[in-house]
């Protein structure tokens, strides 16, 4: 069935360093991938999305490239800020509007 795998449960970094959060997927459909971010006690919200192979998508300093050959959609940022501390979820659009979420990665940025 359709699934999303995020390998890191927790990533801790110092402000200003680069980050990459891993996301791989399995699907029988043509893939449509999302990254959602959830700050503490807030609603999850869309960070970026893509269905185009090998095209970089960017928003708010974060970027990701869908690679169908490796079934990956890793999230990256060149320099993390304290305000980037949050939960990050990779998600996959499947049939009937259903969206399958990965287990999430908590990013903690320290001063």
């Amino acid at each position, binding site marked *: 069935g359709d699934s999303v795998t995020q390998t890191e449960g927790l990533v801790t970094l110092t402000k200003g360093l680069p980050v990459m959060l891993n996301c791989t997927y399995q699907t029988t*459909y043509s893939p*449509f991938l*999302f990254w*959602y971010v*959830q700050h503490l*006690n*807030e*609603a*999850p*919200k*869309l960070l970026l*999305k893509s*269905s185009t192979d090998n095209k970089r998508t960017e928003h708010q300093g974060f970027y990701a490239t869908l690679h169908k050959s490796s079934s990956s959609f890793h999230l990256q940022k060149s320099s993390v800020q304290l305000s980037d501390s949050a*939960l990050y*979820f990779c998600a996959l*659009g*499947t*049939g*009937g*509007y*259903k*969206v*399958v*979420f990965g*287990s*999430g990665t*908590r990013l903690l940025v320290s001063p």
Partner: protein
Amino acid sequence: NSKVIQTPRYLVKGQGQKAKMRCIPEKGHPVVFWYQQNKNNEFKFLINFQNQEVLQQIDMTEKRFSAECPSNSPCSLEIQSSEAGDSALYLCASSPGAGGRQNTLYFGAGTRLSVL
């Protein structure tokens, strides 16, 4: 700020009690979802609707959970007989619908249910 409104924010129930939560989707969004987010922050899909009709639901939802999205009224999710394992954050999301799998979900802040 989210335009999907969920009430109440917090709900405390005893085991065996009914628990009911409501969601007003974003205006113009015909597709509504309910997800359960557990203490490990994992999302579990429960049910989704399109214009009051159920699209998909999991087995658990069929047995103890009931949900509806009547026209001109808030959507609701009700647990008939709460269990300790139901303690979680219940997230409602709505979507514009057009475009199928590429639809962005717009989430509410959730109802946090604690079953004592």
